[in-house]
């Protein structure tokens, strides 16, 4: 296998934003243990649609943990629309590259992010709908 970059190692050794968010505004859950990777991504979004916090829990290899950590770092402070544009390639690039056999981890991270954002949108839509219904 190709070597992990120093950036990957950094994020693996000291992953940022590990954990869960109580009462998150969006959650993305992807992967399954048979394939060897599970990621859970939590986001907290303020009323200006800005992601104020993101946390993850990951069962997976070094690359899975590093991409999880990186993606949470990258989206905090971004609006949901901006965050949605964060691609797996962007995450990979920010990590200084990934071994070919580990590229799927960055795909997983992107998917987790998308799912968390979808989840957030669903919830806000529901809320809106609820509000609309109420009004």
């Amino acid at each position: 296998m190709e070597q992990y970059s120093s950036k990957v190692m950094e994020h693996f050794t000291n992953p940022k934003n590990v954990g869960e968010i109580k009462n998150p505004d969006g959650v993305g859950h992807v992967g399954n243990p048979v394939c060897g990777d599970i990621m859970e991504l939590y986001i907290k979004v303020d009323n200006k649609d800005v992601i104020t916090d993101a946390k993850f829990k990951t069962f997976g290899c070094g690359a899975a943990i590093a991409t999880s950590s990186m993606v949470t770092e990258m989206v905090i402070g971004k609006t949901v629309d901006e965050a949605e544009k964060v691609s797996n390639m962007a995450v990979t690039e920010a990590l200084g590259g990934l071994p070919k056999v580990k590229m799927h981890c960055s795909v997983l991270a992107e998917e987790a992010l998308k799912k968390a954002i979808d989840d957030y949108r669903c919830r806000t839509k529901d809320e809106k709908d609820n509000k609309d219904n109420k009004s």
Partner: protein
Amino acid sequence: MKVYLDNNATTPVSDEVKKEMIFAIDIYGNPSSLHQFGVEARNIVEKARRRVAETLGCDGQEIIFTSGGTESDNLAVRGYLKTTSKKHIITSATEHHAVYNIFNELEKEGYRVTRIGVDKNGTVDINQLKEELTEDTAIVSIMLANNETGTVQPVGEIVSAVKSMFPHIIVHTDAVQALGKLKFSVKELGVDLLSVSAHKINGPKGIGALYIKKGVRIKHLVSGGHHEKNVRPGTENVAGIAGFGCAAEIAVSKIDEVNDILEKLKLKLIKGVKEKIKNIKINSDAEKTLSNTVNISFNNVEGESIIMMLDMDGIAVSTGSACTSGSLEPSHVLKAMGVDPVAAQGSIRFSMGKYTTEEEIDYLLEKLPPVIERLRKMSPLERQ
């Protein structure tokens, strides 16, 4: 502190072996040459052949040097199949990737492949094997000791069963992990073909041997000169062969001594892990297991991340085989043993060697629990 617990992947070259290799590097003639330079080199090769033969309990004429265990396995199975038109071949579900992939590819090439299952301890089902034997069965290839779990297969019994029913079926065993760890002789086992590799017994990498029982014919896979009885052409790796000869001799001479120590360390390791870490599963529980190998599943965490964290503490371990590193598939060995997929993902192989010390196991037992704890804290599976 540096702690190497990956001796099933490869082992440190011992000083004695290194010395013989350095000596052999200077004996530079081509063993095929007629002149004295050639004779000198040939003498080194033949001395090593006798030493390897003695280690395996056979005649020098029955030993062919190869470039490693993988080539030996291929030469045995494919080399034999080239001499027969039979189309049924049998192996086990827990072979090393070399044999495992040979059979997968032979299946694609049109052979009917039977893979004998194993019980939860990894031991092959001899009764199933007996039922699968037919007139059309060419070869049975079942390893002597497993690289991931250390499970020792009853190869002697398998040979008896096969030969009593169909004397002409050829039996091969991959003894790469057994050599130097298990006492055996090819005569006792009764096998026709047996593979070994030097780098698993404190010898050099890139050199192996195949035992071919007198009277058993196999055909070369690679064409070329007349080297190694026309079975394996190419100028011989003289220094590697010299190192192998030396390593083989040492490995069996100290086998009881080393195994006694390893057995104690193994118990200590298992006991320590059980005491300090909960929610684990020992995967090397077979009645007969190599003394040096412990395979443990740490539930809810993934193996590679354990390896990487231990590596930062200077501890070298691995998941299954070194060859699967970088591959995505979970261990086919643990799967065949019925280990739950999540537990399989979190399995680590600790494989000790003759240089492993008690201090090293203490160090491991100090560093491992916080690693598992840390990874479990990150795991989404942990709270469920």
